[in-house]
C-alpha cells in the first residue's frame, strides 16, 4: 500500500465520520461545524485525486461561503422547540428503506471489482491547464453558470425584500 492509498483511506474515514456526526446532531450549529470538517476532508481528497484548483474552490466556496451562510441563518432563526427536530422513530423506516436500498444497489453494482481492480495512476491537472481547458472547451457552460449566479442574486434580493404592504398591515 503506497502512501497515497493510505492518505486516501485516512481522509475518506475522516470525511465519512465527520458527515455521520453532522447528519445526526440535534444542535444545528454543531452539525454545520462538523460539516465544515467534512468539506475540508473532501477538499484534501480532491487534491489527492489530482484537482488542486477544485480543492481550493471547495474550501473557499463550500467551507467558507456556504457554511458561513448557514451559520448566519441559524443564528437569525430561533427554532422553537427541542423535541420536534427529528421525525418520530416510527416514521424512520421509509428513510432507512430508501437510503439503505440505494446503498445496497450501489454496492451490488460495484461488488465484483471492489478488490481485484488495479489502482488508478496518480495524475494532477495543473490549475493553468485546467483553466485553459475550461475556457476553451466549456466557455458556453461557464457563461450559463455566471448567468445562473446572477439570476440567483436577483431572486434572493426579491425574496428578502420586505414588502411595503406587509409593513402597513403589521403596523397597527
Amino acid at each position, binding site marked *: 500500500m503506497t502512501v*497515497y*492509498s493510505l492518505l*486516501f483511506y485516512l481522509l*475518506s474515514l475522516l*470525511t*465519512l465520520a465527520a*458527515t*455521520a456526526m453532522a*447528519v445526526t446532531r440535534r444542535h*444545528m450549529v454543531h*452539525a454545520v461545524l462538523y*460539516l465544515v470538517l*467534512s*468539506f475540508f476532508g*473532501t477538499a484534501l481528497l480532491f487534491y489527492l*485525486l*489530482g484537482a488542486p*484548483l*477544485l480543492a481550493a*474552490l*471547495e474550501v473557499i*466556496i*463550500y467551507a467558507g461561503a*456556504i457554511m458561513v*451562510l*448557514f451559520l448566519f441563518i441559524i443564528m437569525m*432563526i430561533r427554532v*422553537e422547540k427541542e423535541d*420536534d*427536530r*427529528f421525525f*418520530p422513530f*416510527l416514521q424512520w423506516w421509509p*428513510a432507512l428503506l430508501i*437510503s439503505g436500498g*440505494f*446503498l445496497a444497489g*450501489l*454496492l451490488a453494482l*460495484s461488488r465484483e*471489482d471492489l478488490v481485484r*481492480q*488495479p*489502482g*488508478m*495512476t496518480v*495524475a494532477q491537472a495543473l490549475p493553468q491547464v*485546467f483553466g485553459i*481547458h*475550461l475556457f476553451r*472547451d466549456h466557455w458556453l*457552460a461557464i457563461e450559463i*453558470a455566471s448567468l445562473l*449566479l446572477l*439570476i*440567483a*442574486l436577483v*431572486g434572493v434580493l426579491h*425574496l*428578502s425584500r420586505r414588502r411595503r404592504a406587509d409593513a402597513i398591515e403589521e403596523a397597527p
Partner: protein
Amino acid sequence: MVPFSHSLLVAALLFGMGLFCLLTRRNLIMMLLGIEVMLNAGALAFVAASLHWQQMDGQAMVLFILTVAATEVSVGLALIVALYRRTGSVDPDPPADRQLAAQAGEGGV
C-alpha cells in the same frame, strides 16, 4: 493509488448519509444541509472519474456543481427566511399537518 471503485464507494456512502439526513430531519435548514452533502458526494465521484479516465471534463463538471450548490443554497435559505417571517417556524409540514403529527406522535410513541 486506490482503485476507482473505492472512491466511488466513499462517494456512495456520503450520498447515502445526505439522503438519510434529507429524509429524517424535520427542519428545512437540516434538509438543505443534506442536499449539500449529496451534491458534494456527486462532486467527489466526478473528480474520481476524471482521474480514472484521465480526462479533465469531470473536473469541469465539478465546477458547475459548485455553482449550482451555491445558487441552490442562497435561494433556498432566502425562501426559508421568507417562510420563517411568515409562519414563525422552519418545519416542512403545513401547520394543520404539524398538529396531526404531534397528536400521532403522542398517541403512537
